[in-house]
């Protein structure tokens, strides 16, 4: 029984450290906010110009001037500040955000990331993804380990157009956790019920296996 989306989000939340400023992508990464460990205080950045993102609003609290980067209505906190898009991406590009958690279509064993474009299909645009992976100190990908057709998404080389080169530091998938550094990829954790063999079978990328597995 591999990890569910919630399991992945819960595992990603363990990467948070007290005092971190964090940017969460759309989709599963958004769920990470639900699993922030007790005693850990993190501040969520929304790249459309907000630091200190609160929960979704109640019906009464909805404010059309207050949305996140996924264009969802949200709320503010005591600690909140607002700023322009230029200042927001100055923050991101300047390396002030500790951690970005986002989704992926493909990741390569050297950390290359593809998550914005499928040639031949209508392209919606990269939004802030290229800026985030280029600027944020640590990039964690949460993704289903395989595509719907079963093909591998963790590859020797990405076949889709890249979002960034060598930018991914960690993959959290239903199979487990992989870290990527200058020495390549390493499987460091397995989801319950998943074996190293299954992980290998479902992966095209080369990876080492941590000694304790």
């Amino acid at each position: 029984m591999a990890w569910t989306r919630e399991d992945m989000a819960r595992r990603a939340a363990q990467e948070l450290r007290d005092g971190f400023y964090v940017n969460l992508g759309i989709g599963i990464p958004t769920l990470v906010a639900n699993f922030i460990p007790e005693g850990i205080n993190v501040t969520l950045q929304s790249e459309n110009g907000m630091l200190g993102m609160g929960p979704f609003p109640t019906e009464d609290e909805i404010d059309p001037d207050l949305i996140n980067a996924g264009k969802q209505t949200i709320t503010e906190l005591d600690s909140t500040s607002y700023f322009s898009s230029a200042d927001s991406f100055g923050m991101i590009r300047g390396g002030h955000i500790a951690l970005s958690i986002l989704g992926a279509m493909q990741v390569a064993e050297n950390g290359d990331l593809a998550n914005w474009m499928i040639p031949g299909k209508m392209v919606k645009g990269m939004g802030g993804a290229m800026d985030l992976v280029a600027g944020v100190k640590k990039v964690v990908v949460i993704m289903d380990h395989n595509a719907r057709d079963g093909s591998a998404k963790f590859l020797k080389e990405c076949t889709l157009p890249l979002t960034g080169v060598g930018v991914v530091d960690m993959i959290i998938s239903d199979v487990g956790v992989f870290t990527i550094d200058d020495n390549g990829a390493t499987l460091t954790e397995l989801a319950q019920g998943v074996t190293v063999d299954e992980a290998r079978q479902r992966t095209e990328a080369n990876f080492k296996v941590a000694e304790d597995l």
Partner: protein
Amino acid sequence: MKKPYPEATSALEGVLFDGMTIMAGGFGLCGIPENLITALRDSGTQNITAISNNAGIDDFGLGLLLQTRQIKKMVSSYVGENKEFERQYLAKELELEFNPQGTLAERIRAGGAGIPGFYTKTGVGTLIAEGKEHKDFNGETYILETGLIADVSLVKAWKGDKEGNLIFRKTARNFNPMMATAGKITIAEVEELVETGELDPDQIHTPGIFVQRIIQSKDLEKRIEHRTTRKQGE
């Protein structure tokens, strides 16, 4: 040199021409100059190059100008919310230049600040970097991006005074402040147009020097794209 105009149509008078470049503030439908976009549509101006983070939705925001085929080219970071956009783009009726969102924001800021080019690591090794100058600083590779300016910038603020000083509200700020600096002519619409002196000078986000014309918005809809809520007490 009176900046206040009675409404959007008159505020656009004399500054529009076919083939012009327009910047329009907003992120999604948040903080968009609704009145000015409608007036621009009604002006019938053709072959517009529109610089805006998004392209609106089918029946709101810049989508209105797509319906009428007034836009020749979009410079944006994300256009995923607009079916008419997709149709025109796939039919090659519309040009599209994608910029990473932070690069787009910085290019506009640079244009307004007299910076013709700057280096960024955003997009290095991707399609975005193709054909762009590469340069190393401290052992890392960066690409050259250029400043952007517009013939006319349309921005939306919360409050403004008769000198053109602007204050934005929450995440409706987004691209508006930079675009105000990057328009040869900048026209602002505000929810509340107040007398000069009513805004705290320490809190003004956009000094009036950047704003040539200003109107008070009428009948703002402020549509919400994704109304996401939690239950009371959750």
